[in-house]
């Protein structure tokens, strides 16, 4: 079992060497990508139990910062990505301070995050110097690795695979660290945790900062991969839902939840699409039904189900 993560990584690394299909590579790239941003959400929403409904805020900051720095100042997105992450951490600390300082929990915290993301969406729509409602087209320079642009999709595949491996490793370390235990304590019972001397405000802010920084780097990756981002793609509520869907299906607060959820939803989406070709929209209905069934029958995600089976078996 201990070698499993390395084995998975090795399998991931050889797939592009064996598979010629652009579609398979592209689909896997998107699955890793959603797992990556899902892992970002997972730190705050899963481990610390602070259910954010507005993670598009950080995603958008990442996407916009790296793109704007490239378009306006010619700065390579390799650096811009970290600038975006830094700004997202700042935004996370600010929104976190405002929410946690005033004791917002549960649904109220979810709503305030949604509102923060909406503020940024409306602002991005109306500020012309960030592209306004048009958004930003990243100028293409052909195959330019120094500028985070590649002629072949496989480069993006390996980059997001490495980013995902790093994030998964980080979260695994976090899980068994002091901070990780403090987060879990807050998630299970915040008052009790505080009674035991955990500084809930501080731990939650730390979770927020880590989560925001990670999600923002996913945003920068998106902007480079698609080379187009607009206010709705970046900060829109649909994006917030996309971000949290996978870790929740896979199992929030588990290391492998986001990856598992992403594979399930990605596979499910592509599978139903391939199965039902003749009637437009039918595959989305099937997808929706399976999604509902998953939420109803697997309240703790697939990882929760696996664990229960493990305990019983």
């Amino acid at each position, binding site marked *: 079992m201990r070698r499993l993560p390395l084995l998975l990584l090795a399998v991931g690394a050889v797939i592009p060497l064996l598979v010629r*299909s*652009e*579609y398979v*590579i*592209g*689909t896997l790239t*998107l699955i890793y990508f959603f797992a990556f941003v899902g892992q970002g959400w997972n730190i705050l929403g899963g481990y610390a139990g602070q259910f954010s409904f507005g993670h598009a805020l950080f995603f958008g900051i990442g996407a916009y910062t790296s793109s704007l720095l490239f378009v306006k100042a010619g700065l390579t997105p390799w650096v811009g990505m970290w600038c975006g992450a830094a700004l997202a951490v700042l935004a996370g600390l600010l929104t976190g301070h405002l929410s946690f300082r005033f004791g917002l929990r549960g649904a109220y915290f979810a709503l305030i995050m949604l509102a923060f993301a909406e503020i940024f969406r409306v602002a991005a*729509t*109306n500020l012309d110097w960030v592209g*306004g*409602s*048009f*958004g930003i*087209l990243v*100028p*293409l320079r052909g195959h330019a690795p120094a500028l985070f642009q590649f*002629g072949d*999709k496989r480069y993006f595949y390996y980059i997001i695979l490495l980013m995902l491996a790093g994030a998964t490793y980080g979260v695994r370390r976090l899980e068994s660290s002091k901070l990780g235990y403090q987060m879990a304590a807050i998630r299970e019972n915040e008052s009790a945790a505080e009674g035991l001397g955990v500084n809930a405000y501080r731990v939650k802010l730390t979770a927020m900062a880590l989560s925001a920084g990670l999600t923002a780097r996913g945003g920068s990756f998106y902007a480079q991969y*698609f*080379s*187009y981002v*607009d206010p709705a*793609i970046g900060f829109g509520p649909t994006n917030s839902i996309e971000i949290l869907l996978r870790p929740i299906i896979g199992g929030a607060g588990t290391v492998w939840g986001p990856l598992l959820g992403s594979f399930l939803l990605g596979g499910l989406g*592509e599978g139903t*699409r391939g199965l039902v070709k003749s009637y*437009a*929209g039918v595959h*989305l209905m099937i997808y929706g039904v399976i999604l509902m069934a998953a939420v109803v029958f697997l309240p703790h995600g697939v990882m929760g189900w696996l664990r229960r089976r493990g305990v019983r078996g």
Partner: protein
Amino acid sequence: MITRRAFVKGAAAVTGGLGFPAVLRAQPKEILVGETHPLTGGLAREGNLGKNGIELAVNEINAGGGIRSMGGARLRLMVLDNESKPPVAISTIERLKDAGAAAILGPYASGLAFVTTQEAEKYKIPHVLDVAIADQITERGFRYTFRACPNAGMGAKHTVDYLGAMAKDLKLSVKRVVLIHEDGIFGKSTADTLQKLLPGIGMDVVERIPHSAATQSLANEVLRIKAAKADIVIPSTYYGPHSLLLRTMAEQRVDVAAILSVYGGAGSQYRFIKDVAKLADYMMDGNHWYNPKHPRIKGIIAAFEKAYQHPFAYEWMLAYQSAYVLKDALERAASTDRDKVRDALAATNLKDQIVPYPIAFNDKGQNPHARTLLMQVLDQKIAVVYPNEFAEAKPVIPMPAWAGRV
């Protein structure tokens, strides 16, 4: 030059004659043509119109003997739904690449076209756009992207030119223009362009009123139009707010000389006339349209209505046209090699089309000859009123007061 098989009564007899010996000979080979359209999601209506338009054209082409230069090879469509989402749009292009499509048609919307053209460029697959009018799509230096229809900037310029010429022809004293636009990419960029162009024909933008596309009421906005003493109101917005604007102006009896839109969400749409009936009369719109003088256009519209029970809409017409642009290129390339098809597309020189302009592409892949026409709803029909060479009716400006007719 392409010779289009007329889709009229006689066609069945002709194709019957052609088809029979084909069965005795070897089966002619097929050419795989890819198509990505938003068949579900927010753009499903437009995407399905586009899909039907291409289907009609491909059926005509196949019934007319396929691609002659390739021994009557038939076109086989591979239609993929991109769900109105950019990430899915990417995967549709990947699948079409894997399947070996010779070229790709679609994807109706600009937001999707940014992604599909970029992917097609990466794989060197020719991509003929049907609508997707954002200027920037053909400004990115892509060699495999082709757009036969006018872009956003061209459309705004043509409509303003028509307005200026019409004002001169009819000796109108109209000067005060109010722009009302939704605050998204489409409305805002159109309003920006208009604000730059209108002074050139001696008109002043006296007020500019943005609104949210999801708005439920335009009562205050219409009050502002009234206060501004507008001669001409130019809405650039989507279907819902566009019809809401008309209802509100009629209710408040705000009379102006003309309500004229540029690529209006509700302008030049038969469902608009169906929905608001008499309120739609005298609305003007500069938009994509067919050449009303073209001998084949009536037959094509009738064939579409018969096949899909849907009245004319430019969305399907442009998709239909894009399939014929590709057909012509395949005919000249005499090959499904993507680079040869691309080179043939780049050398396109089509005249006598159902669109009111010849089709050729500049080095960016845009058709510089493309243009919009100016239409007006008259007696519950959409008639071309400008420019004169295509006009079916005389424009009615100023429009009659609301009080006398609703």
